[in-house]
């Protein structure tokens, strides 16, 4: 009995030490990636390829979900605002919730599952097929050649995707609110413009999405780079990327929101 209890405690301790250890390795990996990011400017062609696979290929899912999220916000917002007789504030509601929160957060969640998982699977498979080891053998630094361009590409894509998500969402809210339900078009836009501040709302949204982009990309890259070189190891690493980066996005969002919109 005591033996089993001891074993349980030992396992918990092992897991805790293992987690902290991995955290340290991840931090070192992050610093190394940043140090090697200079290659993004020396060989932009590498980054272009990564922007294509992380950004352009995520375009469809981002645009379509942005449109639908905006349309749902328009419908739900109208239902609630109507009871207070202030349907004209629909534009404010849709724009503020998209630009401040939903745009960066939902776009980052989609980005993590669409692009983050692909990055992890790709690097994990490269490791499993010993391409990474081969590069090291040829004195090519895999961090500079494989990791850093993906980092730059994904981090530049993320704010652009979030902006597109918000813009499509506002358009979706406009479609449902103004075209379908018939809220007055003039007050829809003018109230929105009066309430949404460039510095306070839009720039903060861009900052948020950049931070999420860095977090998602570094988690995806590290999980791929650290994956056991087996089929099961890569599949587990891909799952972990999506789970960890989604949690990281939501936790970071809370911290950033607390900093940005406190009182004001």
């Amino acid at each position, binding site marked *: 009995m005591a033996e089993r209890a001891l074993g349980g405690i030992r396992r918990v301790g092992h897991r805790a030490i293992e987690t902290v250890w991995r955290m340290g390795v991840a931090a070192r990996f992050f610093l190394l990636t940043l140090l090697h990011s200079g290659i993004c400017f020396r060989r932009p062609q590498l980054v272009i390829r990564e922007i294509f696979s992380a950004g352009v290929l995520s375009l469809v899912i981002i645009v379509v979900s942005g449109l639908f999220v905006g349309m749902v916000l328009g419908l739900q917002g109208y239902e609630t605002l109507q009871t207070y007789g202030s349907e004209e504030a629909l534009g404010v509601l849709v724009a503020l919730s998209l630009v401040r929160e939903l745009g960066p957060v939902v776009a980052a969640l989609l980005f993590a599952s669409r692009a983050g998982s692909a990055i992890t699977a790709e690097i994990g498979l490269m490791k499993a097929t010993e391409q990474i080891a081969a590069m090291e053998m040829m004195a090519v630094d895999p961090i500079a050649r494989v990791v850093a361009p993906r980092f730059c590409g994904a981090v530049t*894509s993320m704010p652009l995707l979030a902006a597109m998500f918000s813009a499509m969402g506002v358009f979706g809210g406009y479609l449902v609110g103004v075209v379908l339900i018939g809220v007055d078009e003039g007050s829809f836009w003018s109230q929105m413009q009066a309430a949404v501040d460039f510095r306070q709302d839009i720039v903060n949204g861009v900052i948020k999405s950049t931070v999420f982009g860095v977090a998602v990309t570094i988690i995806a890259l590290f999980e791929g780079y650290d994956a056991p070189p087996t089929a099961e190891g890569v599949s587990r690493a891909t799952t972990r990327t999506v789970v960890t980066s989604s949690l990281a996005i939501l936790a970071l969002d809370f911290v950033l929101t607390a900093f940005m919109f406190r009182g004001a």
Partner: protein
Amino acid sequence: MERTTLDLWVGLFVVLGILALVFLALKVGNIGTIDTTRTYAVTARFPNIGGLKVRAPVKSAGVVVGRVGDIRFNTQHYEAEVVLNLNSAYAFPVDSSAAIMTSGLLGEQYIALEPGAEEKMLAAGGVIKITQGAVVLENLIGQFLYGKADEAKAAKPAE
């Protein structure tokens, strides 16, 4: 440098992203409405500013003519000192008065400027002397109750 179709797609992606940002800034946000115009600052002291916030609008006859630039506490007069950044296109007489109003029933608070009759105009660094602070609901209820009590007192001898 050789060109590939990849470059075209990435270029399109970047252009779309920047277009979305410009749309957000210009159509959704309020960049370039009043911030880009030249302003001059005047100050006004209020006994109570209520819920007035920095960047709240300053309106005259309902038209936005400026924004609240800064709010601080003046320890000499023990009053709130509000800096108003007024649009240079509008000049106001030195005896203009400022009052803190609420837009709608639950709306945010703004400053209403009532132009005076003087020939001299307010310049940068000027002070608006006639002010009326925000209405505090508790004081209003208090006044109402005292008023009722006085009414009752006045009515008694007549019985």
